[in-house]
């Protein structure tokens, strides 16, 4: 009889201990998470406000671009000289990669496969092969590749930076190019090959280069032709 009472008492004590441990641990958990949750919330707020900022800036840039386009049309209509010069301007702008273009070509998806990671050399090689096939415009994840575009690994291959913009797999490489010519050449590059999925299309849209242009011409002086 006594032993049973002792047993019951011990079970109750144990129960009490465990209940109090449970309460303590809930408290402790909350204390640990509180600063982290607070920090995460603060970061989320900053992130949203920065994204909003960017959206707003983007809209303003688009508006200014449209205005400038109008101004340019008006300017070209001033007289015959401005008309001819403006046409020339448009051509140079197109060649420089500063206009949106469409044409027939390919969409190539590049991704890590079978444990092999996509590196900057793979994208460099791919753009090179596209150029061998006569590509006239190339974009990677909507970043137009122009004469000044870099393709760089950062953060131990996790990110690749193109035109100063960070991006990661999968990479969508669009190109306006003769798809048949490309097919003939791409087989040679079996190293890059395993990372690729190619799809031909009649209607590839390739956006213009979006960054600032002034910094692309610093330190450079044009040598004027002797004969104008």
């Amino acid at each position, binding site marked *: 009889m006594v032993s049973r009472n002792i047993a019951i008492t011990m079970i109750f004590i144990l*129960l009490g201990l465990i209940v109090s441990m449970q309460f303590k641990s809930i408290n402790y958990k909350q204390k640990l998470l509180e600063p982290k949750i607070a920090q995460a919330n603060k970061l989320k707020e900053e992130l949203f406000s920065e994204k909003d900022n*960017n959206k707003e800036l983007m809209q303003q840039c688009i508006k200014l671009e449209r205005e*400038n386009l109008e101004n340019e049309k008006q300017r070209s209509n001033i007289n015959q000289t401005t008309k001819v010069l403006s046409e020339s301007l448009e051509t*140079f702008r197109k*060649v*420089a*990669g500063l206009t949106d273009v469409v044409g027939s070509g390919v969409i190539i998806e590049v991704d890590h496969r079978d444990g092999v990671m996509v590196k900057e050399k793979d994208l460099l090689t791919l753009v090179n092969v596209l150029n061998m096939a006569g590509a006239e415009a190339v974009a990677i994840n909507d970043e137009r590749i122009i004469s000044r575009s870099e393709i760089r690994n950062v953060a131990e291959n996790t990110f690749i930076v193109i035109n100063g913009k960070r991006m990661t797999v999968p990479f969508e490489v669009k190109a306006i190019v003769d798809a048949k010519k490309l097919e003939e050449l791409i087989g040679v590059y079996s190293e890059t090959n395993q990372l690729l999925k190619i799809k031909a299309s009649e209607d590839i849209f390739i956006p213009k280069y979006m960054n600032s242009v002034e910094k692309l011409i610093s330190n450079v002086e044009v040598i004027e032709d002797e004969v104008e």
Partner: protein
Amino acid sequence: MKLNKNIAIAVVCVLLGIMLALQYKSINYKEEVSSYEHKTLEELKDNLLIEKRKNEELMVRYDELQNENRQYELAQGDIDKNIENIKKDITKYEIISGLADVKGKGIILTIDNVEIRMPLEGEEDYNFKIEVQERELLEVINELRASDANAISINDERIVATTEIAEVDDGMIINGVKVSAPYEIKALGDPEKLENSLTMLNGVVEGLQSYQLEVSLEKSDEIIIPKARGSVIRTNLLKPANK
């Protein structure tokens, strides 16, 4: 009496069991949640950095567009000013597309193949050649671009967006033209900056030298880089996009 007591004991035991299980679960949960929160924090910080960078770039772009806009206003009614502005813009785009001869400060990087001759006893010397590879030239160009080189040429072939570099017997095809070693790579930009990025630890020059290739680098105050030949530029597949 005995039955009630037994029921009481049974209930307590069940409660005990439940408490023990809960305690065990809460320990697991705590660890999972804190690691999840940690990863989310890192991702958030990364995403914030990306947005901030985008913001900086957008601000620069915005200023530039505003400036362009102002130019139109300032030239209102002045035909000559307008013509001058168009010509200025043409010059800008000529440079970017590689269609103008240019000059400025920069660097000249020269890479050459190496022939190694190993004399063998009682037999003919063993010769072999270490040659520059296509991929190495691509990497050099990439590094130069990342260091803000605004014009680049290899053996006087202007490197533009559509330039290909194809390794062939005894050289490379660049812009449809064959060139051979030594490869003289000229780049316009800040000579210090260009030299530093090319020669940094584990950088491009070190990589080339580790393959025994001959590499030399010089800075210069005036380098001339020719424009790309007309045939290099192709645009017949491109059609203007209507948004």
